[in-house]
């Protein structure tokens, strides 16, 4: 007999235990996600390696269909680009009177810029002493008078501006001490003009530097096309091949294309499978997490109902479920984590792609998971668990069983 009070207490305990299980599963799922990220990076490298090997072995003209034509067209375009780059290089070198263009930039621009910046700093320091209100007012009034002399003369007269200017002038003399207002205005004007001149010179040097940099960039681009043609060609064609691979099954590439291509292909295929298996495993872990979430929802619902009725007797079936739910979930979680860690570790650390290539060579239809299990020294989980987690393995087993 279990009353509402006891049921609520039992449910609280189960809730806490299942939340802990959920956190353990989540930690494992996060580790699988990290492994998947690492495999994705490996896969990108493997794709590049595959494309490079492929390009070495297979003549472009041998490639079939539209894709082959695309590659040939790209090759032709690259050759034309090289011709244009050679012309550009000759023209650029001619503009320099035959002077070498490899390092067209020296530090004269930077040192001139540094000198101008130093000059500007010094001028700003000198101008700083004129930064006070009375001087700013007088300067503004004089600047207005320069722009609109008749209006300013009238405005000074009707607003008694001369008395203000006399006061500002007195404040300027008192502040600066070594010059009167008129001398201060002249000195400020001289410094401002000099500041403007240096800013103009600085802009001019920067423009010259930018022009030289643009020339150097054009030269660098042309130089690379001409002198690093093979590298550029390989990079460009590899990029095309990698795009192509995104849509095609590299497993179709046979050993007849050459050992290196086959090995690179096997590495790609195996990495793809490793990603597939770990993605399936992640799905299984997330399924377990969802189940626990569902249990916590049920337990919270039960607490909500039982807590306000401490004396009410709980149905025996529900009481029995309450007593066992946390333990049964714990058993399932322990089994899941034990096998999940074995599968995760075994799949992730395996990297003997040459052995896989050999095995696939002798048995092209072998399941990659079985090849991997046969080659690794890691303890893999029971087949029943793997079949439950990885649909590909289960389908293969069903197929084998039907054949037998």
């Amino acid at each position, binding site marked *: 007999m279990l009353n509402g009070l006891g049921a609520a207490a039992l449910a609280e305990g189960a809730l806490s235990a299942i939340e802990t299980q959920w956190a353990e599963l989540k930690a494992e799922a996060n580790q699988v996600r990290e492994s998947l990220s690492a495999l994705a990076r490996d896969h990108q490298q493997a794709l590049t390696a595959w494309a490079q090997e492929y390009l070495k072995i297979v003549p472009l003209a041998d490639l079939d269909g539209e894709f082959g034509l695309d590659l040939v067209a790209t090759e032709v375009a690259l050759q034309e680009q090289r011709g244009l780059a050679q012309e550009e290089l000759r023209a650029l070198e001619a503009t320099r009177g035959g002077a070498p263009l490899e390092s067209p930039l020296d530090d004269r621009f930077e040192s001139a810029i540094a000198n101008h910046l130093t000059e500007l700093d010094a001028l700003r320091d000198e101008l700083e002493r004129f930064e006070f209100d009375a001087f700013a007012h007088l300067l503004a009034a004089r600047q207005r008078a320069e722009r609109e002399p008749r209006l300013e003369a*009238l*405005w000074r007269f*009707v*607003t*008694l*501006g001369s008395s*203000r200017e006399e006061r500002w002038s007195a404040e300027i003399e008192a502040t600066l001490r070594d010059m009167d207002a008129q001398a201060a205005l002249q000195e400020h004007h001289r410094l401002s003009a000099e500041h403007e001149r240096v800013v103009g010179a600085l802009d001019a040097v920067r423009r010259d530097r930018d022009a030289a940099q643009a020339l150097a960039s054009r030269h660098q681009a042309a130089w690379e096309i001409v002198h690093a043609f093979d590298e550029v060609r390989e990079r460009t064609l590899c990029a095309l091949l990698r795009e192509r691979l995104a849509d095609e099954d590299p497993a179709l590439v046979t050993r007849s294309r050459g050992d290196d291509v086959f090995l690179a292909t096997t590495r790609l295929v195996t990495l793809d499978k490793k990603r597939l298996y770990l993605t399936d495993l992640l799905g299984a872990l997330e399924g377990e997490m969802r189940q626990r979430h569902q249990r916590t929802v049920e337990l919270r619902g039960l607490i909500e109902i039982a807590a306000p009725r401490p004396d009410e007797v709980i149905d025996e079936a529900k009481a029995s479920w309450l007593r066992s739910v946390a333990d049964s979930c714990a058993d399932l979680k322990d089994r899941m984590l034990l096998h999940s860690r074995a599968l995760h570790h075994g799949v992730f650390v395996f990297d003997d792609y040459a052995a896989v290539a050999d095995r696939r060579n002798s048995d092209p239809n072998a399941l990659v998971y079985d090849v991997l299990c046969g080659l690794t020294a890691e303890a893999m989980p029971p087949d029943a668990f793997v079949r439950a987690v990885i649909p590909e393995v289960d389908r293969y087993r069903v197929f084998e069983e039907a054949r037998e």
Partner: protein
Amino acid sequence: MAWMVQADGNVAAAERALLDTLAGSRSVAERALRAVQGVSLDVLIPEVERYADRFFIAMRARTCALADGRLDPGEIQAFHDLVAAFQLLPQDVAKITEVAAAAARGEDSPPDDRVRALFAASSFVTSLDPEAPPC
């Protein structure tokens, strides 16, 4: 303007320089000063036909009245009479009051767009001497 310059019986050097500038030449300024000597403002007011000229005259009158930092009742009444005689718009009267108060506090009030527009419409925008070179 010549009347205002000599209103206190003394033409300061700065005032004379301004009058010379506005008149376009010293001789025209001299003639203007002679013409207004001993003439009452009441007589001159009807002769100030341009609204913009009236604005600047009223501005000068207000700032002069406030030069000592305060307005006595007589100065306030005189300003009201001037504003009424000149038929100045309320927003222009407010502008005059505001600028003159700032000037009395020693603050600068640069000409704004309204002042510029009035200046452009005033007789001060061009020289009084038709033969003087443009400023």
